[in-house]
């Protein structure tokens, strides 16, 4: 039983449902994948195919699921405790909707730190803001005083607050313009190197996934149709039709 390395994340036969039992909707069908420690794993695929749902099931936001999910070897049950949230954190798809409109950056970050039982919250808030490249000048701003990119940085700071090992990124840049996207992607690469993080990154943009990840799962209609390495993607070695279609569509968009 002593393996050299337990994977950071192991998902096996995951099914996720939404809605009342008699008319429930099967959003994720039998998904399985493994993410090694320190790796960066991409989830790409059709809109509405269940990418965000996998992350939600993992974090306990989609309660109706079956299958097994393991984080660092620990099997997850129905309830998540604080210890879980200290090791797994998520950045949401829409930076305009993921910050409380009436809470300043300071309130958001200090409450998060407080919930995780941190001491010297004051210094930690400043350090987190430095970490995401905002600086303490932004500390008392409210979301409506921040641009989309700045909001996303705050959301990343919030996710980093409990010093997690795994960061789930749900389209972290799709609502942002290209120059800000470049800044955020660079930031994420730096943070990963600094804090030895494991990423699971959802994106519909193959170029972004190729830039950030080593391996990616391609999803369509609730199913993972294929898991392949980024090199295989670049070389166009795809087995499923959908992946080939996706690659072709992305390839002719490369300038």
């Amino acid at each position, binding site marked *: 039983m002593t393996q050299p390395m337990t994977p950071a994340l192991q998902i096996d036969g995951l099914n996720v449902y*939404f809605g009342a039992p008699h008319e429930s*909707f099967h959003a994720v069908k039998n998904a399985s994948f493994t993410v090694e420690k320190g790796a960066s794993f991409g989830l*790409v*695929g*059709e*809109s*509405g195919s269940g990418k*965000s*749902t996998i992350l939600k099931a993992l974090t306990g936001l989609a309660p109706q699921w079956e299958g097994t999910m393991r984080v660092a070897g620990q099997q997850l049950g129905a309830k998540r405790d604080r210890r879980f949230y200290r090791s797994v954190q998520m950045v949401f*798809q*829409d930076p*305009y*909707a993921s910050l409380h409109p009436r809470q300043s950056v300071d309130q958001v970050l200090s409450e998060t730190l407080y919930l995780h039982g941190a001491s010297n919250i004051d210094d930690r808030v400043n350090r987190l803001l430095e970490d995401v490249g905002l600086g303490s000048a932004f500390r008392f701003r409210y979301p409506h005083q921040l*641009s*989309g*990119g700045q909001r996303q940085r705050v959301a990343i700071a919030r996710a980093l607050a409990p010093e997690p090992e795994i960061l789930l990124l749900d*389209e972290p840049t*799709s*609502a*942002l*313009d*290209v*120059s*800000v*996207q*470049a*800044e955020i*992607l*660079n930031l994420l*690469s730096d943070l990963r190197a600094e804090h030895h993080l494991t990423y699971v990154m959802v994106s*519909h943009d*193959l*170029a*972004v996934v*190729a*830039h950030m990840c080593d391996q990616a799962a391609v999803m369509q*209609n609730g199913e993972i149709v294929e898991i392949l390495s980024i090199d295989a993607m*670049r070389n166009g070695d795809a087995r499923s039709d959908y992946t080939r*279609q*996706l690659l072709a*569509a*992305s*390839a002719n*968009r*490369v*300038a």
Partner: protein
Amino acid sequence: MTPLLDIKNLWVKFPTRTGVVEAVRGISFSLGRERLGIVGESGSGKSMTGRAILRLIRPPGIIEADHISLHDQDLLSLSEAKMRAIRGQKISMVMQDPKFSLNPVMTIGAQLIEAHRLHSKSSRAEARTKAIEMLEAVSIRDPERVMKAYPHEMSGGMGQRIMIAMMLIPNPEILIADEPTSALDVSVQGQVLSIMDRLVKERGMGLIFISHDLNLVSQFCDRVLIMYAGRIVEVCDADKLHQAQHPYTRGLLGSLPRFDTPRARLDVLQRDPAWREAPSVEARP
């Protein structure tokens, strides 16, 4: 050929306690039966331009312009009641944030049917069939389920497509689409774009396509305006976007990650204060 829409010297200003914020600073452009792209970084005034055309800037914001004419009719001189008739019927707009634009406590179906019946005096059953057709057109997989769902039960991309379906119902002459496909994967994006394309080609609709996706704009549009700090810094034919000259445009292009050639770090834009002061480029015939 007279253009559908002609805008001269448009300003959008927000008086605040610490001075006036100028979101759009004197831009001029016209729109024919074409696909006009507007690109630029966040905060460059793209959305404000779109909203100003429909006079949808929230107070205390002020719109000023020499004229905003739709077929020689100046929209700025119309009464609010007349303007309401223009919105939706003649010009409709897909807003940037679908989740804020849909009613959170009403089902998608009810909202689509209502939008439909507001614009054509059809029966409920007819409107329902039409609504389902529209959802299929934007490649929603199971429209029957989506009709009964609430906005928060939709994925990011589905919300966007529903907004597009909603805006196409009244059959407008001009469609302003603000980042309509930012959450869509390439294949669905293609389908949504082809709907808009068809409307431009077959019905002679004018399309203003606001986006930060330079590749997409260069492929899909006919003409592109590049905005920076509330001004137009460059106008070019979409297929020539990659040969654009302005350092800002070049910077935007340079910060894109590329699928074929991996790079350790992406270049970020270095802004030059002189760009802000340069006069706005006129994009009228």
